[in-house]
C-alpha cells in the first residue's frame, strides 16, 4: 500500500524553510536589497495618501458632485485613528504569539483593512453620489459605507506604517538606522509621485467603471506589494514565544516609562510643531501660485515637483550626514533653520511677484522639511529601547499624522476665514501670506524647543539604555532578537 504519511512527510520536509514567510535568522547584516523590499510598504502608504487626499478629493467634488464639505469630512475621518498609532505600536511590542512573531501579524491585519477599504470604496462613492438607482436609496447607505471605506483604509495605513517602521528598526543596528529612515522616506515620496502621475493618467477619461478599476486595482497592488515587502522579514523569536509568564505592563505604565526618558516629550513637541510648520502650506502652495503670481496649471504643478525634489535631496543629505556621525537633533534644527527663511522667501515673492523666488523658496522649504523629517524620525528610533520600539514609533506616527492633518485643515480654515472677512479690493496674497507667517512662527517655536536638546548631548542621552536594565525583559529581548528561532537547531 502506498504510504501516504511518509510520502507527505517527505514532501513537506523537502519544501523546507525556503517557502515560509519568516526569516530563518535575524542576521547582523541585513542586505540593502532586503531593506529595499521592506520599504515597499511605504509605496502603498504613499499610494493610499495620494488617492485619498489628491485624486479622490478632486473626483468626488468634480466628477461625482459630492458637496465639498462632505468630502472634507470624509477625507478627515482617517485622522481619527492617528492617535491610536501609539496604542497599536505598544500592542505590537507586547504581542503574544506562539510563533514568536510580533510585527508580521499586524502588517497582515493592516494590509487586510487597507485592502477591504479600497475594495468597497468605489461602490460606496458611487452610491454616495447617487449613481444609477442609488439616487432612490436611503442617504445613510452611501454616507455610512463611504465613511466605513475611508476609515478602513485610514486604519490600515496607520497600522502598516507604524508597524512597518518598527520592523525596519528591529532589523538594523543603530548605526544603519539613518540609512533606513532615508530609504523609507524616499520610498514614501516615490510611491506618492508615481501614483499621482498614474492616477492622473488613468482617470484622464473618467467613467464610473474606470473609477472602480483604478481603486480596486490599488487594492490588489496594496496587497501584492505589502506581502512581497514583509515576506521573510521578521525572524521568529523563540525566547519571546516562550516568555508567556512575563508581567503584563499596561499602556499607561509603558507610556510613562517612555516619556520619562530625558527629552522624549520635548522631541514629540518638536515633531508636532515642525510637522505642522512644514505641512500647513502643502495644499495652499498651488492655489497661491495660481491666484497671486498668476501661474498656469503646468507651472503650479512644478511647485509641487520642486517641493518633492527638495525633500528628496533633504532625505539623501540627511542620510549621508547622519551616517557620517552627525546627530539627529542637529538635522532637525538645521531643517527648521532652513525652513524659516524659505517661507520668508515665499512670502516675499508675493510682493515682488517673482516666480523664480517662489520656486527657490519652495525648493528650500522641501529641503528643510526633508532634513527635519529625517532627523526627528531617526531621533525617535534611537530614543527607544529595543522593547519599546513599536510604542515610540507609534508615538512618532500619532504626533506626526495628527499634526500634519490638523495643519492642513487649519491652513485651509485660516485662508477661508481671511478671505471671508477681507474687504473687497484687498490684496489676493494676504490669506496665503498669513498662513505662511504662521508656519514661520511654528518653525521658530519648534527651533526654540529643539535648541536646549542640543546643549546636553541629547542625541545620545535618550538612547542610553542603562535605566532599562532593571526592566525584566529588556535583556532577554535584546538577546532574543539576535537569536534565530531555528526549530531543530537550537535543541
Amino acid at each position, binding site marked *: 500500500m502506498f504510504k501516504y504519511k511518509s510520502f507527505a512527510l517527505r514532501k513537506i520536509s523537502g519544501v523546507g524553510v525556503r517557502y515560509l514567510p519568516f526569516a530563518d535568522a535575524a542576521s547582523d547584516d541585513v542586505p540593502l536589497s532586503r531593506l529595499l523590499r521592506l520599504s515597499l510598504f511605504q509605496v502603498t502608504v504613499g499610494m493610499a495618501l495620494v488617492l485619498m487626499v489628491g485624486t479622490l478629493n478632486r473626483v468626488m467634488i468634480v466628477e461625482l458632485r459630492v458637496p465639498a464639505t462632505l468630502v472634507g469630512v470624509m477625507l478627515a475621518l482617517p485622522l481619527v485613528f492617528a492617535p491610536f498609532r501609539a496604542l497599536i505600536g505598544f500592542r505590537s511590542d507586547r504581542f503574544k504569539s506562539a510563533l514568536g512573531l510580533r510585527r508580521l501579524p499586524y502588517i497582515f491585519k493592516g494590509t487586510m483593512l487597507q485592502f477591504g477599504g479600497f475594495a468597497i470604496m468605489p461602490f460606496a462613492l458611487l452610491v454616495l453620489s447617487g449613481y444609477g438607482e442609488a439616487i432612490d436609496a436611503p442617504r445613510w447607505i452611501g454616507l455610512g*459605507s463611504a465613511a*466605513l471605506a475611508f476609515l478602513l483604509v485610514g486604519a490600515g495605513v496607520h497600522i502598516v506604517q507604524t508597524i512597518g517602521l518598527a520592523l525596519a528598526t528591529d532589523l538594523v543596528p543603530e548605526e544603519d538606522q539613518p540609512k533606513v529612515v532615508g530609504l523609507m522616506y524616499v520610498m514614501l515620496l516615490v510611491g506618492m509621485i508615481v501614483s499621482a502621475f498614474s492616477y492622473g493618467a488613468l482617470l484622464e477619461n473618467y467613467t464610473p467603471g474606470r473609477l472602480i478599476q483604478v481603486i480596486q486595482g490599488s487594492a490588489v497592488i496594496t496587497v501584492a506589494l505589502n506581502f512581497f515587502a514583509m515576506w521573510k522579514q521578521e525572524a521568529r523569536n523563540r525566547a519571546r514565544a516562550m516568555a508567556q509568564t512575563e508581567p503584563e505592563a499596561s499602556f499607561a505604565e509603558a507610556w510613562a516609562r517612555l516619556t520619562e526618558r530625558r527629552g522624549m516629550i520635548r522631541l514629540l513637541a518638536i515633531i508636532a510643531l515642525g510637522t505642522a510648520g512644514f505641512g500647513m502650506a502643502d495644499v495652499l502652495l498651488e492655489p497661491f501660485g495660481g491666484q497671486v503670481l498668476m501661474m498656469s496649471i503646468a507651472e503650479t504643478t512644478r511647485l509641487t515637483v520642486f517641493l518633492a525634489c527638495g525633500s528628496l535631496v533633504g532625505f539623501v543629505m540627511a542620510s549621508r550626514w547622519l551616517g557620517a556621525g552627525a546627530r539627529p537633533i542637529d538635522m532637525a534644527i538645521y531643517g527648521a533653520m532652513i525652513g524659516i527663511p524659505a517661507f520668508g522667501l515665499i512670502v516675499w515673492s508675493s510682493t515682488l511677484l517673482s516666480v523664480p523666488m517662489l520656486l527657490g523658496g519652495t525648493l528650500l522649504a522641501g529641503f528643510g522639511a526633508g532634513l527635519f523629517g529625517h532627523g526627528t524620525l531617526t531621533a525617535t528610533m534611537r530614543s527607544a529601547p529595543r522593547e519599546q520600539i513599536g510604542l515610540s514609533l507609534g508615538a512618532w506616527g500619532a504626533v506626526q499624522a495628527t499634526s500634519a492633518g490638523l495643519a492642513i485643515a487649519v491652513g485651509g480654515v485660516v485662508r477661508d476665514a481671511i478671505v471671508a472677512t477681507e474687504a473687497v479690493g484687498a490684496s489676493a496674497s494676504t490669506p496665503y501670506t498669513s498662513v505662511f507667517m504662521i508656519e514661520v512662527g511654528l518653525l521658530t517655536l519648534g527651533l526654540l524647543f529643539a535648541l536646549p536638546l542640543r546643549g546636553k548631548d541629547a542625541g545620545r542621552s535618550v538612547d542610553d539604555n542603562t535605566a532599562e536594565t532593571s526592566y525584566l525583559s529588556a535583556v532577554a529581548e535584546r538577546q532574543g532578537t539576535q537569536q534565530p528561532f531555528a526549530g531543530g537547531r537550537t535543541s
Partner: protein
Amino acid sequence: MSNDPDKVWPTGLTLREAEEVHSYLIDGTRVFGVIALIAHILVAVSTPWLG
C-alpha cells in the same frame, strides 16, 4: 525536530503555533467575506442585479 512531543504531524508546528496560523487564516477569511458582502450590497443598491 521529531523528538519534541509538542510538535504534531505533519507540519512540525506545536499545537499553539498551529492554532495561531489558523487564526490568521480565519481572520483573513472573515474580513474577505464581510468586505465581499458589503461590496455586493452596494453594487446592488446602485445597479440592481437581483431582478
